[in-house]
């Protein structure tokens, strides 16, 4: 067994799914099942409208039978994010919150300053904070100082489907925080991207657009499940170190060594 521990939860699946932009809630439900995921994220800010009028959709999410991780998507200030988290706690009866504080409307890049402020405030209110952040090492330090016990760095900007933009930075984060669960959030497009981040030793991946906007979301959810499992299994099995020279797997006994040198 190779369970993933995020705050108080032990999970068998290392794939988290977002719930936006599917063709229908029914397709979302099938994709969630095909992915094997045990956590789905759900946004509240805009859906809340003038009160609890998002309730029908939230009820569908609760009925998926997986843990809901509400997010603060669309929030631009720490204050907004804190208020949204408080509402989310009521709606989904959970202390978990995926914290997003958006600094730039066009690229949806996190405002890491507001993010740290909001994380501190939420931790003091007893929330388990999952911060959506960049791959910046110092920001990661600050988030841990603020009380976050999980980090969710991006691989590339939200919805871009580019895969890992900066493998060096993701490796550095992994090396600096060997004991903190690291979940890549945002920017993955193809299953191979998920395998790649799992091979870097990341603990899990969170996807939305890559599945929701695939031609066949359910088929893509299944593909990502396998890709995440493959990457994790590969990382645990300790891949060989790459070499610059060919290394015959069968000894070439008919030739003296010095000819190969």
């Amino acid at each position: 067994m190779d369970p993933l521990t995020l705050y108080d939860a032990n999970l068998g699946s290392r794939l988290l799914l977002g719930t936006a932009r599917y063709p229908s809630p029914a397709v979302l439900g099938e994709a969630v099942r095909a992915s094997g995921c045990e956590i789905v994220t759900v946004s509240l800010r805009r859906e809340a409208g003038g009160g609890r009028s998002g309730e029908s959709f939230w009820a569908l999410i609760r009925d998926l039978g997986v843990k809901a991780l509400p997010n603060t998507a669309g929030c631009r200030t720490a204050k907004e994010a804190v208020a949204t988290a408080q509402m989310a706690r009521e709606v989904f009866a959970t202390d978990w919150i995926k914290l997003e504080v958006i600094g730039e409307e066009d690229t949806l890049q996190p405002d890491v300053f507001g993010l740290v402020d909001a994380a501190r405030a939420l931790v003091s209110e007893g929330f388990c904070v999952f911060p959506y952040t960049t791959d910046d090492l110092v920001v990661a330090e600050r988030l841990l100082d603020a009380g976050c016990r999980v980090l969710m760095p991006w691989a590339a900007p939200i919805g871009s489907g580019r895969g890992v933009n900066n493998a060096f930075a993701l490796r550095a984060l992994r090396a600096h925080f060997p004991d903190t669960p690291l979940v890549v959030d945002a920017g993955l497009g193809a299953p191979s991207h998920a395998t790649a981040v799992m091979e870097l030793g990341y603990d899990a991946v969170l996807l939305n657009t890559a599945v929701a906007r695939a031609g066949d979301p359910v088929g893509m959810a299944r593909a990502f499940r396998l890709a995440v499992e493959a990457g994790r299994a590969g990382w645990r099995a300790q891949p060989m170190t790459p070499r610059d020279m060919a290394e015959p797997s069968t000894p070439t006994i008919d030739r003296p060594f010095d000819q190969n040198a």
Partner: protein
Amino acid sequence: MIRARVIGAGVAGLCAAWALARAGVEVELVETAAAVGAGCSRYAGGMIAPWCELENAEPLVACLGGEALDFWSRELAVATIAGSLVVAPARETAELTDFARRTKNFCRLDADGIAALEPDLAGRFPRALYFPAEAHLDPRQALSALDARLASLPNVARRFGVNADALPPAPDWTIDCRGFSARGALPGLRGVKGEMLLLRSDDIRLSRPVRLLHPRRPAYIVPRGDGLFMIGATMIENEERARVTARSIVELVNSAFTLHPAFGEAEIVETGSDVRPAFVDNLPRLTLRGRTLFINGLYRHGFLLAPALAARAARIVCDGVDFPELTNAHSGERAFA
């Protein structure tokens, strides 16, 4: 003669009344509002675009929607077949590629091709998709036209300002077309909020609906004549009916402005907000309970789906025909139950 009471005078109810009346049924159309189109139908885009809708809808929608082209453009003669144009801002060309992958019956246009179709868009987009066989209509005009045709039929009685709950039971059949208002009777029906905007500008002319693709804020602009343009529509999983938010208006105006900067000086004539009735699979449903038939779940495809659903409702009432693809719950609903 079979008698049927149709409840609700939105696009679903009016089409049902028409199909039943044409099939020889004696129809009583009952509506709580004082006139037709008081519900979400009045805010529709009015695009009869079965193939564009494949972008995010299942093939059944395109299949049923094909029947609407003939109904609105020939039988009712309120729709114009001038095609649909689909464009994307320069940095979102991946959206155009995805759109083409999901849809059919289009041709690809370059900048010259766009300019030939819509001279006012010349030089604004390098490429587009053109769906020549699609149509558009003005929903309010179409609802009024359909109502007028119903008024001229001897076997149709239209009763406005009447609550069906207060009436004695219907004689033979009840056709419930109340949309989101039927929610108490139809478990699993939810509302999906949509907001729209009506702009007036004399500085730009369009001959057909234009869809502007964007990963987070897709929008469409439908010309309504006399310098009027309908900009729609937001899609929010939320059931508040009449509340237009500033953010949504910013997004819709921004889309119009992206299509053509002249919209920046356009007059805001109207804003509107309501919810679309939808089932969990976002597919329409004919729900038969005894002699009550619910036509519901038309989601964002009211004008596209109502004629085909009405025709099938008439076959159910008159001939007892079954339509399993519409009357059985889609597998998605079972999965959620």
